[in-house]
């Protein structure tokens, strides 16, 4: 369990280092992708709530 946790922390650190090493243009593209994902997630979660059976 500890190994899995450590591996996840190491992975996160690597991802952070990777993001920090991007150019500004690449970082902005990343922000644009995050924006799109968040928007689609928001739409999806709204429609999921709307389609939930009412008590």
């Amino acid at each position, binding site marked *: 369990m500890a190994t899995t946790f450590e591996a996840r922390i190491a992975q996160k650190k690597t991802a*952070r280092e990777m*993001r*920090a090493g*991007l150019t*500004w*243009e690449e*970082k*902005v593209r*990343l*922000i*644009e992708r*995050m*924006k799109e994902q*968040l928007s689609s997630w928001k739409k999806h979660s709204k429609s999921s709530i709307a389609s939930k059976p009412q008590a």
Partner: protein
Amino acid sequence: MEKTLEVLNRLEAAGLMGRYAIGGAVAAAYYVEPTVTYDLDIFTVIPGSSLFIDLSPIYTQLKSWGYKEQGAGVDIEGWEVQLLPPPGPLEEAALDAAATQIFHGVPTRILTAEFLCAIMLKTGRPKDLIRLSQFLEEAVLSYNTFMGILDRFSLREKWQQFVLRHFDGREPVFSIP
């Protein structure tokens, strides 16, 4: 974002807005790890404005190009653009000192790291102070330039309070003199 910047450059070329520069999270992403944001903060001088700032000529032009108001700004090619006339001398100086950058072939300007941080310190919202800490952790500021700005705009006291609260009173390490 390049299409958004092209539209802003057209507004500047048409004289509807003066010199502009990108601030906020998109400018911060130039210097430090990016964070998600929906808006594009644009510092700009509105020609002819004195006491009252009239954005209507810009909004009318944008509307004629098919762009609609969204939230506190205008949706230009997928970015909610917020036009921010400099509220004081600090922001005016930041705009003057903004550096030219090219984004996918489109020229634009972004605020320097030191001015961005001074504005964050002045604004003092929790998210600004978190971002300021990020700049300090990633050691991207020039000590002399930053302290010069703090002195020029009477922000030393705020800085000392920030250092006390976020760094236990120990001045953070600046790797750039």
